[in-house]
């Protein structure tokens, strides 16, 4: 037994990793016959980007079908009630008499604000929405230079199309579409009765 054998073994491990972190080192190690050391792990973020996983979520957005005025949201305020950090603020669109305005056969929100700095990405708003009107986005680069104004996202900024949703989360979008189609079929068959 060599005194300090274990220490030398440990030193060898770190040295091979050190060497393997260079491209020339990778070739050198391959030459000596040491394999299985991966080399650099770091993804240099702003230049290199990892495509987020499909189920990755960051911040909710409002879904519209076709044109931006055709919102799925009916301003029912369920998400506002359920939001744990209470970062959603909704006001329904109403006329002078205080009656809800209808567009495409349903009510719509006049204001729909979500505070990015408060939202905790829990997805409860998506789960409670009976109309599948709100979904989670995977865009996480929402930094801003000012602390209050630009971090509150208003309705215009939150609107995104159903196609966009299908593009970033195909599986989830397919489920939602199937559910909506079934609902539409049910309302269609129920109506004549």
């Amino acid at each position: 037994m060599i005194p300090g054998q274990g220490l030398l073994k440990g030193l060898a491990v770190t040295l091979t990793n050190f060497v393997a972190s260079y491209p020339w080192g990778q070739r050198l190690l391959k030459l000596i016959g040491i394999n299985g050391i991966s080399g650099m792990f770091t993804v240099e973020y702003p230049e290199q980007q990892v495509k987020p996983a499909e189920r990755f979520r960051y911040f909710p957005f409002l879904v519209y079908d076709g044109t931006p005025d055709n919102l799925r949201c009916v301003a029912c305020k369920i998400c506002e009630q359920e939001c744990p950090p209470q970062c959603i603020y909704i006001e329904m669109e109403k006329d002078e008499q205080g009656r809800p305005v209808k567009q495409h056969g349903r009510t719509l929100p006049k204001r729909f604000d979500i505070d990015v700095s408060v939202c905790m990405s829990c997805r409860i708003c998506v789960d409670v929405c009976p109309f599948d009107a709100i979904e989670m986005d995977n865009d996480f680069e929402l930094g801003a230079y000012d602390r209050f104004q630009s971090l509150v996202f208003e309705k215009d900024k939150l609107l995104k199309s159903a196609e966009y949703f299908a593009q970033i989360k195909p599986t989830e979008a397919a489920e939602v579409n199937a559910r909506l189609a079934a609902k539409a079929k049910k309302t269609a068959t129920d109506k004549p009765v």
Partner: protein
Amino acid sequence: MDQLFVSLKQQFLDLSSRFLPESLLPWISMLISIAVIATIAPIIMMYFTWLERKVIARMQNRFGPNRAGKFGLLQPIADGIKMLTKEDIVPAGADRLAHFLAPVLAVIPALLVFAVLPFGRNMTAIDLNIGLLFFLAMSSIGTFAVFAGGWASRSKFSLLGAMRSVAQIISYEVPMVLAVVVVIMMTGTLSTNAIVEAQESLRWFVFTPWGFVGFLLFFIAGVAEVNRTPFDLPEGESEIVAGFHTEYSGMKFALFYMGEFLGAFAMAGLAATLFLGGWQGPLLPSWLWFLLKTYALVFVMIWFRGTFPRLRIDQLMNFAWKCLLPLSMINVGVAGLWLYLPAIIRWPLAIVILWTSAVWLTRLALPVQWERRTYQLAE
């Protein structure tokens, strides 16, 4: 090329002798040496931190700092600016004077030891005939700063770190000095310059059995002396926050850091001087050889930090008193035999003695392994 810096200094002196009285010249010569050391030292420290972060990052398959400048070369400057602009906090109830003096006291001895390091041929700032003694004395004053800082902070973490530091230095000073003794026995001098000159034409002391063991002992004890991993108990982050510099911020913290890194650099430099032939070496200029050897040892220090976990305090003491100290004493004995035996006998004899004692001492220093208890009734 070899005498580049020496001749530069000479030219400067010649230039100043034209319009300055002759009696001032020795003072100017001293001033130049001091100025060079005082300028080089912070740069060495800054790029030591950069090197450390880079090398450790590579060992952990990361890039390390690479944003500030090419290869992150401006990172130490950014750190320096950050340190300078940070708030200076003194804890309530702290001994303000000692709290203020401790970081200064940490840097000064680390700078002073550079005076006796032979950076190259004719490049020792002052060739003291007790240079080695001066180095050892100065490098252990750093502990005083650590203890003063820890005591003055009025914090439990600081005090614990300081106590550990003192215990550690007392233990490791002994084997370190005994490891140096073999070199003094062989060369018969305490002057660092003369020690380097004794290792001419590749007769470096590390190539002899006693030199090799002495080098290992000195380097290990030196790493412990300058509080680097795996002997960084005085500032063990995971146990006592930051040890003796828990209550330090801003430039005071940076000074502690600087003292530590300069100490590590000087320790690597002294190890290179004593055992690796200092600035001796073929082809390349002497100062380059010195820097190469020193930075190789600095790399090994960083490599240690990337590899080993911190020792426990009892393991630390065990290792110093049961393993390093007896081995260094045996090494002194072997060096004595070496002086008086012919070459044919002394080589095998020295190797056998040192090898067997190293094997047995490491085995004895191992913690007691109790036999696994078997509960007969339970079965």
